[in-house]
């Protein structure tokens, strides 16, 4: 009886499967259910992954090398004083609710993000914008308080929403409305999120798929089996452990790129012992980043400094940082110079994520060999975040998402009083360089300033940058046209199709 039931259901499912293949809705397996989908309110990666570049787009976009290219704006001009940026919008952009996108929507979107009532965490990215003026239905002018070099890159992550949503706090959390290649269809919490093709998408002939179905599959082993058995066609942004287990499985292919996200050890510069730059430098000498990559990241990554090597335009070659050559003896000498009693007893809070826990253990061992005595503090996420925010730590091991423009990361993290400067780091030289680079529109001058910032931060800064991991996506062999992006966006899925 059971056998018969099994065989008939297998037959039935075979039929269902072939029917599904012609409709070409891509079955994607993601680990976490998003808490909400409003692009201006969300902060979790589980949410970004579903909406950015799929449902939503910005005025600008980033290409595969993370360079700014036209998005919903087909072109723009910057006034000579750098304080006015005029965007020319595309004519044929239509929101998922059927209304055409105009300059009014752009102005409303900016007002929405800046409004106190919405309390959007993106507001600081638009801090430089004083006013947005609608010139004509397809021309919009951004008036700035001061010139802002990172603005164009920031606008790529500023999701355009219809003006009807300007003061609505709840609708988009449940049912997002954007201009992207896929539109929101259905959300079964903890089950799946279904997006379907946006028929009036502004790019001719795209998207090729009929839709995307984000299945929420919390267990990594289940995602693996689902992919090898063909129930899922894509496991995007997988961790190295999962990806390497899927390597070489029949019907499965891996796509990889170097991540913008990095792992780090943060140091509290507001109290001993890490208020002393020499002690921070000692940490950098004590670390062996190559060993960390091998031991904790399964070799899937590269050692890195303050900026990801993926940002070829900006990142300084590691050979230029003397402290990146592991030297425990030098570390101990520095501790002696600093005049601290050895072993230096400190605690390190650890972000509760497996790769970070692994990294923390390697770091602990390396630091202990060089005159420290590190105690690991494994915390629940809520507690970790709270301690992080309140600067309640000696050291912490964590990860950070990184961004395409250095200003996005550096300014808020290392500028005196920066919003995520939880290290309480204050260095007038760095402050000045960051201010210059932010308002300068000369690419060469920015590059030079950021080079100096990187060198200033690498050995004595409040963060010992550890490694940039390799980011993997695992897909069925027949998924074509999908490309993995270093910022983890799934925007290339608009070009994807399922072959035979």
């Amino acid at each position, binding site marked *: 009886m059971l056998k018969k039931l099994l065989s008939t259901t297998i037959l039935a499912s075979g039929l269902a*499967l072939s029917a599904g293949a012609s409709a070409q809705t891509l079955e994607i397996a993601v680990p976490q259910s998003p808490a909400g989908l409003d692009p201006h309110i969300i902060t979790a990666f589980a949410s970004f992954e579903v909406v950015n570049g799929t449902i939503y787009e910005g005025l600008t976009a980033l290409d595969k090398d993370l360079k700014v290219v036209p998005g919903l704006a087909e072109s723009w001009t910057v006034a000579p004083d750098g304080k006015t940026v005029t965007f020319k919008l595309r004519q044929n952009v239509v929101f998922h609710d059927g209304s055409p996108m105009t300059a009014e929507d752009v102005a409303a979107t900016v007002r929405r993000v800046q409004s106190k009532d919405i309390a959007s965490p993106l507001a600081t990215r638009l801090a430089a914008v004083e006013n947005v003026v609608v010139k004509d239905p397809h021309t919009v002018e951004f008036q700035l308080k001061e010139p802002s070099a990172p603005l164009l890159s920031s606008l790529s992550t500023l999701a355009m929403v219809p003006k009807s949503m300007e003061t609505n706090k709840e609708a988009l959390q449940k049912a997002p409305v954007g201009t992207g290649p896929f539109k929101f269809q259905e959300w079964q919490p903890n089950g799946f999120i279904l997006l379907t093709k946006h028929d009036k998408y502004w790019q001719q002939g795209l998207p090729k798929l009929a839709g995307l179905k984000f299945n929420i599959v919390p267990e990594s082993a289940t995602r693996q089996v689902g992919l090898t058995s063909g129930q899922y066609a894509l496991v995007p942004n997988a961790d190295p452990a999962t990806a390497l287990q899927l390597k070489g499985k029949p019907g499965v292919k891996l796509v990889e790129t170097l991540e913008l996200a990095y792992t780090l050890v943060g140091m509290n510069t507001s109290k001993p012992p890490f208020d002393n730059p020499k002690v921070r430098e000692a940490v950098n000498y004590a670390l062996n980043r190559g060993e960390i990559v091998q031991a904790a990241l399964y070799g899937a990554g590269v050692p890195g400094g303050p900026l990801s090597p993926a940002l070829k335009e900006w990142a300084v070659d590691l050979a230029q940082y003397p402290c990146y050559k592991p030297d425990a003896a030098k570390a101990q000498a520095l501790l002696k110079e600093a005049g601290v009693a050895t072993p230096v007893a400190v605690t390190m809070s650890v972000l509760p994520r497996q790769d970070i826990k692994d990294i923390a253990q390697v770091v602990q061992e390396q630091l202990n060999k060089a005159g420290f005595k590190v105690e690991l503090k494994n915390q629940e996420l*809520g507690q970790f975040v709270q301690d992080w925010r309140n600067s309640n730590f000696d050291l912490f091991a964590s990860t950070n998402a990184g961004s395409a423009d250095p200003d996005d990361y550096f300014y808020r993290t290392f500028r005196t009083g920066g919003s995520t400067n939880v290290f309480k780091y204050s260095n007038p030289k760095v402050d000045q360089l960051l201010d210059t680079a932010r308002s300068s529109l000369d690419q060469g001058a920015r590059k030079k300033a950021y080079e100096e910032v990187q060198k200033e931060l690498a050995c004595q800064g409040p963060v010992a940058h550890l490694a940039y991991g390799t980011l993997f996506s695992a897909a069925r062999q027949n998924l074509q046209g999908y490309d993995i992006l270093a910022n983890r966006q799934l925007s290339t899925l608009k070009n994807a199709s399922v072959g035979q």
Partner: protein
Amino acid sequence: MFRRLLLARLADLAMVIFGVSVIVFLMIRLIPGDAVAIMLGANTEVTPERMAELRARVGLDQPMLTQYLRWAGAALRGDFGTSLWTGRPVAAEILTHVWPTLELTLLALFFGAGLAIPVGCLMAQTRGKGADVAMRVAAIAGLTIPSFWLGIVLILLLAMLAPTFPSLGYVPFGQDPIGNIQRMLLPAFALGLPILANLSRLVRSAMLDALGQDYIRTARAKGASEGLVVYKHALRNALIPYITSVGIMTGYLLGGAIVVEQVFAIPGLGRLILGAIAERNYPLIQATLLVVTVGFVLVNFVVDLLYGLIDPRVRG
């Protein structure tokens, strides 16, 4: 008599619900970690003023007593509030998640508790023989294998043997009955196996006890068939501890369901609670735990009623 039992039970239920509501309310607020900080996650750019605004937006800036009274008052009127950040009504959230768990629990119970009676009787009848020993070893194995491990192994096995069989996720029965059953088979098996192992051992020993009683000898002496002796006379007496255990286990099944739902990607109550706790979604945790509590109390109530049906002495 029945009405008195019912009234007493309802009074119990009200007390339990009140107690649980207070404990849950306090407990989840004692977990370290601030709901707003968690919602924002690590490394988000936010000023303290923005955080205060967010806190005010969801009413977490009020004193705890005010928060409790507000919530309890609304809950008494049948309004469980809205999920902290999505604004989705909590009641609707629970309703969509309760069916998969209910279905999974019932199927697992049906499989585990249902099979336990014949298996347990068989073990008692073949006591000491090869079949009994084999089944007892199997039962120990069934007890000790954790559901999540069994679940993953089952998924792997099925992926090898029948790769196109849809074993992951959930589709509502009304939408696709076959697909629903297909996806429920493995998780119900993984969840029900420990129940089967546990209960069949219990039935076995209860039956052995009953079979040694005088009235069984009498029944045999008057010439009743072996089947009648075992399944009518002995079984009925052996069932009391069995029913008590089934009642308790239904509660534990909910706990097991959390793990199995996680492995098989089923959007049930367990996943809802886990997610709600992780994001400190207070209204959602409070309401979900209340629902589970009420469910547990109701099951025990049904068990009490069943005693009366099986054992006339309880009725008196």
